């Protein structure tokens, strides 16, 4: 690979997955994520790895979970409507603690929406899309390089915590081209495998770190996987204590590891009076607005989560004694993440800025918003 390349966010995702050790990709074409599926079709077979275009998104998600159970590193990519179809199986992956990575290059909705225009309308779907009580990890890149870094991280977190990890891009981030220098090697995490014999192994054990080692199909463990609420051995249960323990553990293994999972970028948050809380393509416009504002002597900072779920509540609460008076939350939706911001802070005014006409934010309009709230 050349030192510096001009590549797309979608392409960076594929490069990252290859570096992170992907073995298996199943997908169904949908804009604006199509390049990811096409590139895997091209790149996996020459490496002796597997690519399959399934009959729909439901089947794609099912196929990667099946492949993951054989010990492989797996991924799929989609956009809003496909992501909706995948939800039941995402819930299955969460309940059965099967590592997998799902890239959602968001487009506008509801329904078929606007296929190749940017939106950030699936922020809540990523968190609450499947039924029942589970927790999820979702990451939000804002640049081509971050598409690479966060996809690698998604694989590592999926393996480490035995959970589906979602990478939420938006159409701008997926299709934007930037000059980037990608690293030759990356840090790779592999899931913990059982050390004990099949007779002694407990597939869903309440281990101290909350993440039990995972046996693989075909290795003699003869374990059972079910989406039904199960006991430590993996078999269906209706015992209230067992149910509660299970639901608590699959949620707590994410929340108890907040410090390891949640990654937030902060700029000038200490001395600022105003703060942009922003992610994805909206954050790109915020950076420019922030620079322009600083040049004009306005004390503004940026808090940009790269992990959106679990929500970076502690980071926002850390602002409690700061000088910040107002938090501006620009989003390409009618206000999804802003509610989480409001619920995380007290005594700071939170101002939503929403755009949902298929266009992106310009730095000038965000600068105008900032000047308007002063």
């Amino acid at each position, binding site marked *: 690979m050349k030192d510096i390349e001009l590549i797309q966010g979608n392409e960076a995702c594929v490069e990252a997955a290859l570096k992170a050790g992907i073995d298996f990709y199943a997908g169904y074409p949908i804009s604006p994520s199509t390049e990811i599926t096409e590139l895997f079709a091209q790149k996996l077979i020459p490496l002796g790895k597997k690519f399959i275009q399934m009959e729909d998104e439901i*089947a794609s998600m099912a196929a990667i979970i099946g492949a993951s159970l054989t010990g492989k590193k797996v991924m799929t990519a989609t956009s809003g409507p496909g992501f909706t179809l995948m939800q039941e199986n995402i819930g299955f992956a969460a309940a059965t603690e099967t590592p997998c990575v799902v890239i959602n290059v968001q487009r506008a909705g509801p329904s078929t929406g606007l296929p190749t225009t940017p939106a950030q309308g699936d922020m809540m779907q990523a968190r609450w899309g499947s039924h029942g009580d589970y927790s999820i990890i979702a990451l939000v890149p804002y640049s081509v390089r971050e598409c690479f870094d966060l996809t690698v991280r998604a694989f590592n977190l999926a393996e480490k915590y035995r959970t589906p990890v979602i990478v939420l891009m938006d159409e701008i981030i997926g299709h934007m081209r930037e000059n980037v220098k990608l690293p030759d090697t990356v840090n790779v995490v592999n899931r913990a495998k059982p050390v004990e014999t099949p007779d002694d192994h407990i597939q869903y054990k309440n281990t101290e770190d909350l993440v039990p080692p995972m046996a693989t199909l075909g290795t003699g463990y003869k374990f*059972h996987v079910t989406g039904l609420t199960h006991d430590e051995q993996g078999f269906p249960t209706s015992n209230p204590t067992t149910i509660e323990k299970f639901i608590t553990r699959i949620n707590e293994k994410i929340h108890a590891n907040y410090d390891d999972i949640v990654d937030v970028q902060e700029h000038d948050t200490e001395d600022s009076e105003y703060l942009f809380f922003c992610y994805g393509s909206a954050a790109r416009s915020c950076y420019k607005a922030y620079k322009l504002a600083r040049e004009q002597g306005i004390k503004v900072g940026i808090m940009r989560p790269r992990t959106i779920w679990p929500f970076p509540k502690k980071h926002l609460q850390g602002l409690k004694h700061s000088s910040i008076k107002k938090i501006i939350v620009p989003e390409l939706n009618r206000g999804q993440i802003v509610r989480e911001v409001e619920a995380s802070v007290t005594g700071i005014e939170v101002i939503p800025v929403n755009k949902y006409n298929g266009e992106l934010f310009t730095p000038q309009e965000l600068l105008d918003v900032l000047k308007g709230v002063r």
Partner: protein
Amino acid sequence: MNSKILKHLRQDKLPHIWCPGCAHGIVLRSLLEAIDNTGLNTSKTVIVAGIGCASRASGYLDFDTVHTVHGRAIPYATGIKLANPELKVIVITGDGDATAIGGNHLIHGIRRNIDITTVIFNNNVYGMTSGQYSPTTPSGAWAATSPYGHLDRPFDICELAIGAGATYVARGTAYHQTQLTKLIEKGIKHNGFAVIDALSTCPTYFGRKNKRGTAADMITWFKENTITVKANSVNDINQNKDDNSKMKIGEFRNINDVPEFTNEYQKLITQVMKGE
């Protein structure tokens, strides 16, 4: 209990959840006998199931077992088989699971001719949710969701499979248990996608409401109302008569000249890696 099947059961997970008189146990017995007869390595055999009465059997079987979501057992199985072609993958599913919600996946599994053996426990009704009609419920029958008589035409699963290009298709019944074992056995040995339509009974939600008599009557019904493909073809030759009054059972198709998907995939990988 027969030692051939006992050793393949997780006995601590029994008794099963099936109603008294349900023929699923007979179909399961055939499946386990077939597995035993073929001498499959039980550590390299994965049973994948969807949702429904039949699929719950996955919990009782002493293999790697994956009880998935409704209708999607075949795509899960496809992921497992493609990711690790060394594994023998068997899908157990019901008529509703395989041909209603999972109908699309069934035809695409068949189209790929991936080496998966699919045994459909076909009792013509949704048993788990208490008796709603399925795609194999006969026209005119009673079901919880067709209280005035059923209007839809039923699928003939075997014809559907043949139409989609399946390379192994057979139908057996819970009455003809020994034959059913052989049909499943041949399906397991077949290198490609095998569909076995295993006719079962639901005395609780189908038989009772449709006045089909006792559980035993329902199973005996298969004896009176089926004809083997072989016997039918003899009739055809001698009397020039296709016996349409009876349901045909036996092996409908067993062809080996269609390439199996994971074999072809491996060939493609080898070819591409060589740079050919």
